[in-house]
């Protein structure tokens, strides 16, 4: 089990609005190994998180500013971002 150091989470668009903050430092417990695990753990932290992550199909993630999938390992990540599907251009 890789040791997961303290990491920064950043939120954008309606994920940010629902969580109620743009960023935070977290220290997830051992066993939180993937992006999907992290979403599950966050969802249990309070109703604002449960609301933000209620529809997992609508959540996109990036680790250290690169798009990743739910099954991606988070070990060594410094910054993990959660946001809705992009609507730029």
């Amino acid at each position, binding site marked *: 089990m890789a040791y997961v150091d303290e990491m920064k989470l950043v939120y954008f*668009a309606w994920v940010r609005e629902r969580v109620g903050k743009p960023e935070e430092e977290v220290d997830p417990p051992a066993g939180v190994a993937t992006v999907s695990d992290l979403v599950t753990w966050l969802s249990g932290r309070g109703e604002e998180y449960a609301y933000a992550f209620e529809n997992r199909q609508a959540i996109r993630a990036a680790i250290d500013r690169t798009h990743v999938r739910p099954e991606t390992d988070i070990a060594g990540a410094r910054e993990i971002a959660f946001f809705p599907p992009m609507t730029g251009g």
Partner: protein
Amino acid sequence: MTTIRLQREDFDIAAEVAALTRGRSDVGAVATFTGICRGDDALAAMTLEHYPGMAEGEIARHVEEAGKRWPLSGVTVIHRYGRLTPGENIVLVVTAAAHRGPAFAAAEFLMDYLKVSAPFWKKEERADGTRWVAAKGADSAAAERWTAPRRPEAAE
């Protein structure tokens, strides 16, 4: 030559085209695409949020990919953020090449990927409130066609 800028202020299309052609005799074609804020359904304004750092990186990654697919002599991508009202410019893509084919294709490729992979989000503002724009399936399909084994345009 690649220029990528994220900015609040408007851009000058003529100046950006000139920057890619000035002093060169190898550029035979420049294609520009400008995305503009529409005032559909009495839209008052839209606010573009972005992920600083990642947005530039994602655009740069796709500019690099475009450079591998087509012989380009220059690319400029400018994406605005902040509050924009109908009629205002949102995004500019300028591609320069020796011939028009690569210039047109690369501009379309870059816009298709920008829409689905660059971390920007639009929030619309109307008299009755605000709402986040939902991603369109058609945009994903537009981007995915570039990864298909044969593009329909290839037959042309």
